[in-house]
């Protein structure tokens, strides 16, 4: 009898142990075992947009490590499931379906590009799941944008800043626009033409160029815009077009001030344009020159300092703008989660994101509203001047 009883007790213990081992969360027991909050992340970690996706991923992982070390969201650890869309919109869509079907994430952050974001948006809109994009294309906010938000500044903020600087600081009224005929350039052209009257600026000439055109072909555009006597030449494009234009202007001795776009807020432009880059102005997020553009003691300065120190300590390199976009996306989402709690429905979470006000991120101060899911304003940008091959705060902005 006694033997049988011992066997029964052992058997119960054994089954119990087996049972417990099925639930690893309970086994450890020490963390109190609150259910993790799952967040899906889709970014272009490989393929042509790798320079965007890589730093975004690093920033998001760093943010989550730090958040979980501090106890997560109301005691719930945050788990990010990161998928690579290989810079391919169709893969982004597939990743979104996987995240929603298999992982049951509460929201998705992604992706690095406008095309991939549009793919994901179809799926998140249909299932009413919040999406935070790190891409700047206008198309993202076309149609129903109630479930999609974004972190980077768009052409509206950049063009607004450029026009504001031209009108108020430079005191000029007549601009000519040279735009790249790609999506970035045509979007910029439309935005500039739409916003210029509001700043009292007149657009006297508009010319489109192809970034790969010969230098002589670029010369024709310069001759054309000069015919309308602009006071400032606004060049809206990505490399190498603006560098070609800056170089030809210097060669030909055209000394009209050149205002670029945030498309040249990179070292590549300086490398390409060389000496011709000197004196070129462009609007960019304050992060690019945060030590110069922000005052110590302000919330954004302190955030940038903390972010930059943590990032370089972890990865051995300074964070760039794209890392900032990733950081801001996870920051906005987790702040909203803190407000509504871990068990909130996607709709409650969406509302909480939409109510985000005065949240300081790396790109600026985020204010969302039902009508505006872009979040930033022209005040979050500064005009940068290139001096001796380095970025500096353009005069008149203190």
């Amino acid at each position: 009898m006694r033997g049988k009883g011992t066997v029964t007790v052992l058997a119960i213990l054994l089954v119990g142990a087996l049972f417990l081992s099925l639930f690893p969360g309970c086994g450890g027991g020490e963390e109190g075992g609150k259910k993790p909050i799952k967040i899906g992340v889709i970014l272009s970690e490989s393929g042509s947009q790798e320079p965007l996706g890589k730093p975004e991923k690093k920033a998001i992982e760093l943010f989550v490590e730090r958040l979980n070390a501090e106890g997560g969201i109301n005691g719930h650890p945050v788990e990010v499931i990161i998928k690579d869309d290989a810079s391919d919109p169709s893969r982004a869509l597939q990743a979104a379906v996987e995240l929603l079907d298999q992982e049951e994430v509460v929201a998705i952050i992604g992706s690095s590009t406008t095309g991939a974001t549009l793919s994901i948006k179809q799926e998140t809109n249909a299932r009413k799941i919040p999406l935070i994009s790190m891409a700047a294309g206008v198309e993202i906010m076309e149609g129903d944008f109630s479930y999609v938000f974004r972190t980077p500044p768009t052409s509206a903020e950049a063009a607004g800043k450029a026009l504001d600087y031209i009108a108020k600081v430079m005191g000029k009224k007549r601009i000519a626009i040279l735009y790249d005929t790609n999506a970035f350039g045509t979007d910029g052209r439309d935005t500039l033409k739409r916003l210029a009257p509001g700043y009292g600026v007149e657009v006297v000439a508009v010319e489109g160029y192809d970034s790969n055109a010969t230098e002589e072909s670029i010369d024709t555009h310069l001759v054309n815009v000069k015919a309308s006597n602009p006071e400032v030449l606004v060049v809206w494009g990505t490399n190498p077009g603006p560098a070609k234009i800056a170089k030809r202007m210097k060669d030909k001795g055209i000394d009209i001030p050149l205002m670029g776009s945030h498309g040249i807020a990179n070292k590549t432009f300086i490398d390409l344009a060389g000496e011709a880059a000197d004196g070129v102005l462009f609007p960019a997020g304050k992060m690019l020159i945060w030590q110069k553009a922000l005052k110590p003691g302000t919330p954004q300065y302190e955030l940038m300092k903390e972010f930059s120190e943590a990032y370089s300590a972890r990865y051995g390199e300074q964070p760039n703008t794209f890392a900032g976009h990733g950081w801001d996306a996870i920051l906005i989402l987790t702040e909203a989660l803190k407000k509504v709690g871990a068990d909130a429905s996607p709709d409650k979470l969406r509302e909480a994101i939409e109510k985000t006000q005065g949240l300081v991120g790396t790109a600026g101060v985020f204010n969302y509203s039902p009508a505006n899911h872009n979040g930033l304003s022209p005040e979050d940008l500064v005009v940068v001047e290139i001096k001796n091959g380095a970025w500096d705060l353009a005069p008149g902005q203190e």
Partner: protein
Amino acid sequence: MGAFFSNLPQYLVNGIGSSCVYILMAMGFSLVYSSTGIINFAQGEFAAISALVAYTLSMDLGLPLLLAVAGALALTGFVGLLLERAVIRPLQGKGTLTAIIATIGASIFLKAGARIIWPEEAYKVPEFTQGQLNLPKASFNAQLLWMLGLTAFTVAAMYLLMNGTKLGKGLRACAINPEAARLVGIDVSLMSMAAFAIAALLGGLAGLVSAPFANYGMGLYLGIKGFTAAVIGGLGDVYGAVLGGITVGLLEEVVAGFLSVVLGVSSGYKDAVAVILLISVLLFRPQGLVGKGLVEKV
């Protein structure tokens, strides 16, 4: 209107600069087409590869410019040769359409390969000469003189090659009738390889003179312009390519100037000039402005 006419000399100078690049590209298209019947859609990639290799040789490895340029041309010629052996040759007898489609594949392959090696938005390739020359009514980059000189030299060399050498006669014979050419002892396969290698050199030169900026995607732009120029010229001899190149180059700049200065229309439509020319020629004069090539073939 006055502003347009006072700018006209500058537009023409600019047009001549672009023409040089288009002529070199067009000669590459014409040579391959007239000796093999294939439109080589990877022609633009030769320009990109050569300019990017010149960047690596001169900026990364520090070779003198002359050596870098020679090295880039040699390597591009070799890529052309390899393309013919690896892609075109195995498809022999499968029809020219198959081969043309294969060149589209080769173009995608070369572009993707170049993107892995040179991923940046653009690279600065050194210019042959720095500086700016000012004439009373126009000013231009000193590089333009190199473009003019090299293009003139290449056109002359191509003319002599096609009309005065055994290789040129063989190439032309293959164009007229490959079977007959084979019967009289011409190595048709060798001719095809030579055509691709020379076309690669021509494309490579176009990429080098259109410096100073190069990137993996530039081939498409130059390819479209060169192809248009070649079709306008009838896809045949050297004359045709020169005529086509000059037509596209000059018209583009003058039309862009006219649209912008006289009509006040954004010259974002400049690139449409080449496309409209291409379609008009294909519709109304498919043999090209001077050529008889296409009609004879059909």
